[in-house]
């Protein structure tokens, strides 16, 4: 019973903060509430007997990625930038089609994804088990991730790195860049 209580509580938190992300005008608020939402998800992971993943969730997402977000927001000091709502059609279609999608999805999930028998026995997904699998069967994907991250780093450097920040740059022909 406690489980359910926790589940619903944190599910509510996750959803609410997610909504805040979507609805609130200020990116900083958005970022912070996204962090909150991720925390809630971490709790879900715990409920799903994956404590290690929960930890990862907190460390990687909440810890790393979202900080990065905040950092960028601050760097470009967008914290005061509040976006005006425009493009009513876009908004409307976005909400309606989103609603349709969500409802349909939930409907199908309720209809076809309800498992008669819950999982029996404990699901051992602790660091050890994961570690062993990781370096046995998943060594190749793991290596791929390394390339992925390398590419990402290099890419990030290339895009924002040296030479960047030239406002209204001139291209090689020396003509003004049209904005």
């Amino acid at each position, binding site marked *: 019973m406690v*489980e359910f209580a926790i589940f619903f509580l944190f*599910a509510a938190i*996750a*959803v609410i903060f*997610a*909504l805040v*992300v*979507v609805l609130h005008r200020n*990116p900083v608020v*958005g970022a912070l509430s*996204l962090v909150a*939402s*991720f925390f809630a*998800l971490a709790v*879900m*992971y715990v*409920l*799903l007997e*994956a404590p290690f*993943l929960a930890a*990862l*969730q907190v460390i*990687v*997402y909440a810890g*790393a*990625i979202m900080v990065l*977000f905040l950092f*960028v927001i601050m760097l*470009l000091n967008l914290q005061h*930038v509040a*976006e005006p709502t425009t493009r009513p059609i876009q908004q409307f*279609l*976005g*909400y309606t089609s*989103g*609603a349709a*999608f*969500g409802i349909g*999805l939930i409907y199908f*999930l309720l209809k076809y*994804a*309800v*498992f008669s028998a*819950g*999982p029996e*026995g404990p699901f051992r*997904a602790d660091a050890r*088990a*994961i570690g062993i*699998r990781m370096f046995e069967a*998943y060594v190749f994907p793991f290596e791929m*991730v390394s390339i992925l*991250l390398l*590419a*990402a780093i290099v*890419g*990030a450097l290339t*895009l924002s790195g040296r030479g960047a*920040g030239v*406002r209204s740059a001139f291209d090689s022909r020396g003509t003004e860049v049209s904005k």
Partner: protein
Amino acid sequence: MIPTHYFLILSAILFTIGVVGVLTRKNGITIFMCIELMVNAVNLTFLAYARQFHDLHGLMFVFFIMAIAAAEAAVGLAIFISLFHHRDTIDVDEANLMHW
């Protein structure tokens, strides 16, 4: 023991919220955050199924998705920065030099 589909439905809701966010927001970074939200929803689904099947594969998938998210985040934010350098804003509606 919470039934798996609870989690599935939760993730569906989150995913949808993320999608709506992407469609309705203009601030590039917010949009990207919404995408992150979608990805997390996917993670939740994977994990729920993984637990349901007692199959670590799903869990591993989550792990790798996190890596993907990280990589995207790095590049994406770099792109936003250079976008900002070009036009003092990250409002994606402003980015419409090319059309038709």
